[in-house]
Structure formats: C-alpha cells, structure tokens
C-alpha cells in the first residue's frame, strides 16, 4: 500500500470515526499552489487525524486582512500564514498571540523543537513553515559550458556579463545582495548596512548596474523576463524558477550564491475564535514529517533540521527535491538570512532612499 492510498483510507475512516467533535478552524494563506500544497500535506491528514475540519481562505498577503480583523475586534481567522517581517511587526503591536515553542513536537530524530528549527527562525508569535530564497537565476542555454555566472559578484559585473538584469524593485534583499557582491561576508552584511557608509556602499554597488536594470515587482515576472530573453539574468524567488524548470522544462538555473532567504510561518491572531484547535493544527503541520511532505510539493525548504533528510523526490516525479531547496547544505555556503529586525527599523528610511535612487537618473 503506497502512501497515497493510506492517506485516502485514513481520511475516509477518520471521517467516519470522529464525526466533527471539534469545531472547524479557519486558515488564511496565500492561495494558489501554496495552499494546494498545504491542503495535501496538512489540512487533509490533519482533519483525518483529529476530526477538526479546515476552512481555507485565500489572501494576497494574510497580514493585511488579519490586522484589519484584529483592529475591528471581529476575528474570524484561527491560523494565518505570515511573512516573518509581518509577524514580528504585528506581534510587537500585540495583534498576535505568543506561541510557546516548547509545546511543539520534537523532531523526527528526537531533537527538542526549540533546537530543531534553524537558528533564528523561531520567534515570539510565529512558528516557521518554510524557507524561500531570493536568488539570482539565469538561462543556462544562453551561456557556453562553464561560462555561466557563478557568483553573486557576476550579477554586478556588466563587463564580464553584458546585458540587462532583472532587479527586484525593493531595497530589502537588493541592498544585501549588493553588499555581498561587494565582498561583504554574509554574517557581516547587517552590521555594515546599519552604518551610513554601508548604505552608501550598497547604493554605489547598485549604481554599477543601474543602466542595465529591468525592475520587477511581481514574482511571475522574472521567469517571463528570462523566457523572453529580455534579461541575461535576474533576481527571482527560487520557487518560481524551479516551477519554470520542472513544469515547463525551461533551462533555468538558480545561482546558489549570495541569495537572501526568508521564512514564513503560522501565527494565531489575538482573539482567534478557536485558538486551542489552532494550536493543535500548528503543532501538527510544523512537525518534521508533515514539513518534509510539504517541501516535496513546493520547492520551499523546511525550517526543521530533522525534516531535511526526509524530503524525497519532487512529488509525482523521480527528481530529488532537496538540491532545489534553499536549505540544502550545499546551497547554503554563502547565504544570508534576511533580518526582519533590521528591516522593521529601517524599511521606511531605506525605502525612501531606494525610491529616490530609482528616481534620480
């Protein structure tokens, strides 16, 4: 009996055995392929196991409606999927419930949860669900064997690699990449960026590609830019490039150097109607097994160290998923964890400066 039929059977019997003892919970998430992966890896088995039904709600960014719900004192969401930056912000503002990490299940190898999660990813109000990276990607067919860009510095080297580049239109990630390309080691990036000289240095580096930059905002744009041949390389969310490569057979490669990774995860809004069941769900979904299953369906890394070895092939294929994940050890040699703390403080100022820089031609 394969895993899938087992799942189906438990779902069926579970539904019979435990007729909706608990109330349904409402989970707000990104929708699309993300929610599809959640449904298969979390919602269905969770309902099968506990009898708690899941109502799935989509949002462009769940933080916005959740904040509105809490502000209005009319919370209908039990669990929401937040970016770490939003989670930190709303947590500070008292709009999310603190989550005691010690209640989370141990890792598959028995490591206590608080040690099992990658360092710095656990925070007061959020349990991380996945890690995604913004990295440089390119069309391998456009470069001769061995002549493809191989480091983040190459992205900023317009002599060696002439042509347009796709650049994310946001100071976050872009400034960090500029500094890394300029030779700042990943673990010093935020110290440098915290000084005025560091910011100047990052913008000076950006100046070198300003004339060759095509800016994008929506995640769907970079694969399109690559496919149309508009750019020789582009910053992109790794999952988008992976999709284009696996689903559409495009010869796109992710350059695992100088990428910036961030994580997102589950939060419980203050005043959630079914907070207890919500916590049960989070415990279930962020366990090693479920997390690994999720990573097989979408190319976002699991934040649990113990889950990494459990990640098998890309769901439904025989391509191993692990090398495509931002958390794959070999992909992590020069990677930077985005600092939500830094950006909460500096986003307004650097956002203004970035916009002013864009404006000044």
């Amino acid at each position, binding site marked *: 009996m394969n895993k899938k039929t087992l799942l189906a059977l438990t779902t069926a019997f579970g539904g019979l055995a435990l007729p909706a003892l608990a109330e349904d919970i409402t989970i707000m998430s990104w929708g699309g392929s993300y929610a599809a992966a959640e449904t298969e890896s979390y919602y269905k088995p969770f309902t099968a196991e506990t009898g708690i039904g899941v109502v799935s709600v989509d949002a462009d*960014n769940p933080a*916005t409606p959740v*904040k509105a719900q809490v502000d209005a004192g009319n919370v209908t969401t039990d669990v929401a999927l937040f970016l770490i930056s939003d989670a930190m*912000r709303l*947590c*500070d*503002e*008292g709009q999310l419930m603190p989550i005691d990490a010690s209640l989370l299940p141990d890792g598959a190898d028995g490591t206590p949860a608080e040690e099992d999660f990658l360092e710095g990813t656990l925070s007061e109000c959020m349990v991380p669900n996945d890690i995604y990276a913004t990295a440089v990607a390119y069309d391998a067919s456009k470069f001769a064997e061995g002549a493809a860009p191989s480091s983040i510095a190459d992205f900023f080297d317009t002599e060696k690699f002439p042509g*347009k580049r796709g650049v994310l*239109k946001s100071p976050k990630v872009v400034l960090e990449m500029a500094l890394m390309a300029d030779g700042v080691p990943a673990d010093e990036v935020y110290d440098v960026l*915290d000084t005025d000289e560091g910011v100047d240095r990052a*913008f000076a580096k950006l100046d070198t590609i*300003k004339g060759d*930059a*095509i*800016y994008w*905002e*929506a995640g769907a744009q970079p694969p399109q830019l690559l496919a*149309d*041949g*508009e750019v020789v390389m582009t910053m992109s969310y790794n999952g988008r490039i992976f999709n284009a490569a696996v689903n559409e057979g495009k010869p796109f490669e992710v350059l695992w150097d100088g990428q910036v990774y961030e994580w997102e995860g589950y939060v419980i809004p203050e005043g959630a109607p079914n907070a207890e069941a919500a916590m049960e769900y989070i415990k279930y979904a962020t366990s090693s097994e479920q997390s690994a299953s999720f990573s097989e369906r979408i190319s976002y890394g699991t934040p649990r160290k113990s889950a990494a070895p459990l990640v098998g092939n890309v769901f439904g294929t025989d391509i191993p998923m692990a090398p495509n994940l931002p958390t794959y050890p070999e992909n992590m040699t020069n990677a930077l964890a985005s600092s939500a*703390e830094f950006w*909460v*403080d*500096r*986003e*307004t*100022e650097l*956002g*203004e*400066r970035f*916009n*002013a*820089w*864009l*404006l000044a*031609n």
Partner: protein
Amino acid sequence: MSDVASQLTTADGRPLKAALASAQARAKRRAFFLVLPLLLFILISFAVPIGQMLQRSVYNDQFSKSVPALSQWFAENPKGTAPDEAAFAALASDLVLMKETRAAGDAGTRINYVVSGTRSMFTKAARGADKLEPPFMEAMLELDEDWDNPLVWNAMRSAASPWTFDFYTIAFDLERDADGKLTKVDETQRIYFRLFIKTFLIAGVITAICLVLAFPIAHLLATLPMAKANLLMILVLLPFWTSLLVRTTSWIVLLQGQGVVNDILVALGIIGDDGRLQMIYNQTGTIIAMVHILLPFMVLPLYSVMRVIPVSYTRAARSLGATSWTTFRRIYLPQTIPGIGAGVLLVFILAVGYYITPALVGGADGQLFSNMVQFHMTKANWSMAAALATMLLVGVLVLYWLYDRLIGIDKLKLG
C-alpha cells in the same frame, strides 16, 4: 430693484416673496426627498472617507495613547528642555505600560517614522521595562546610547500629542533638526516632493499626447456617418473593455527588447539587432501604456462637443474669407474648448492617480506619486498614506481652481 420686489404684495396682501417661497416649498421638499438617497450615498461613500483621510493625515495616537507620564513631563517642561532623570523615569513607567498592553511596537513605529531606526529601541526597552532600576537615565542609556538623542526626544514630544504635522513634513522632504528647525532632508532621501512634481509633469505629458491624438479622432468620429462612426468608436473604447493585465501583457509583448515592434524595426533594417529600442520598463513604457488607457477619456468629451458644432460655422468662416487653418484656429478650436477642458481635466486627474500600470511597465521611472500612497498603505502607515493622498487631492484642486480662473468651470462639457 430688490427693494421694490420686497415691497410687492399679492392680491391678498402677503408679501410677494413670501408667497413665492411658500408656493415653491412643496416642490422643493419633493425635490429634496428625491435626491436624498444620492445625497446620503455621496456623504457615506465620499465625503466621510475623505474627511477621515484628512483627519488621519494630521491625527495619529499610536504613540500618544501609551505615554501618559511622558506627556505630563512634556507639558511641564517647555520645548528645548534637555531630558532629565524625571523624564527618563516617566519614559520608563510608560514603557512598563507598553509592555503590559504590548503597545511598544506601535509606539516605536510612530517615532520611527520621524527618526529612522528607533522602533527597535522601544521594543527592546519595553521587553525589560519592568526590570529597569533608577537612575533611569543611566539604565536606559545602558540599553541604547541613542536614548538621549535630541532628535528622538523631539520626535517623542511631537508625537505625544495625537495632532501632528509630522507626516506633511515628511511628505515635503523636510525634517526637524536637533533645534526643531525645518531643514531639507539629505539629497539621497528626497523622494516625495520630487515625485509629486514628476507625477504632475508626466501626467501633463500624457494629457498633451492624449489631446493631440484624440482631437483628430474625435473630429473624424463627429463628421463620419453614424454607422462608420460607431464602428470606430468601438475601437476607441476597446481599452475600456480589456482587463488591465491583458492590456499590460500585450504592451510588454509589443514593446519589449525582443518584442514585436523591435523585431519589425530590425527586420526592416531601421535599427540594428544590437540597437533595439528600450520602449518598456521605463518612462516611455509608462507614457505609451497610460496614453492608451486614458485616450477614450479624451475622445469622448471632445466627440460629444464636436458632434454638435454645426458645419455651418466653418462654412460661414470660409465664405468670409478665412483659410482652412484660420477657420480651425479661430472658429473651430475655440468652440471645442469645453470638450478640451473636460478631457484634459479628466485625463490629467486620472493620470495623476494611476499606479498599477506604471508599476508594471514603468521600471525604475515607473513610480508615480500614488505608488507611494500604496506603499505606505501596505505598510499600514495610514497617516503617511493619508498625508500623501491629501497632497494629491490638493494638487488636483489647485489645478481645478486654475482651470476655473483661466477657462471657467461652467465651460466644461463632459458628455
């Protein structure tokens, strides 16, 4: 004249004015009840939100609601007083309160708007606030040496009152220095006011192009037989009926470096393969796409005005000896001014407020002022978004006023 009228009476001796008023009162009441639903709708959907927006741009209690002690200290000590131990004690007690109500992030955010990098000072300090011991000044400085930064204290003093002009200060690319004097922000940080000017300039260019393109189209529509005119009208209105994304995607397909237009130009040998024109992801792209979208708003009012200009005016002018150019300039053009005015105002106001199209096809140049409004809205900085939106509103109202002065608003014909 009015004296005489007020003395006139009806046959039964009632003053004429009073009689007229009572005779019309019923009709007026009926008319009022008929428009009442619309009035309420406008009030609820328009006047109230705009009022709220205006209020939000000058009212923000994110900080003030959490700092009772500090507010009192500010009230007792005049502006310019250096913070003393009492001030830090007040701050410490407010931080304890913030920890309890988990309001430190909110309060810090408010100060962070004015002095960058201060939000974490509040969240960190609040976390350990209940363990702070006197002397508070030292203890706080221990936590972060920036706690005696006069900029922070000035910002706190200002934010201790919910009523504030801080957001307008920022919107005009200004800041207060340690002495509280307004100065321009650093060159590299100047964005809002410059973008404001740029937005109005781009909107002006778009409006001008729309006018130049729409005038002959509208004239053609107005003079063509009805059946042909209707067909052409459908072409003009097509952008209305196309979804934004489809439209944008088509522009990208057409205009990008490897796009159709460039391919054709290369194939015709007009440009070299390495000299492909950059027509999208820059200002050109923004202008092309926005002209396309806004053109109908120029064509329609022009058309509705031109359609009712009798051909006999131009014929009369010609018979009086005017060349066709003079006829156009002195007879036809002046009569289309109500349509030009309406179209220009409409297109300009819409262009000033656009943000999706520029964001998608504009590249680095593609930001307009509204993108900043949207930026702050996604960051939940309502006050800043409101201040910027108010600037936009005022800018448009000023233009409207100018229009009224120069041309006269009564000469506006929208359709």
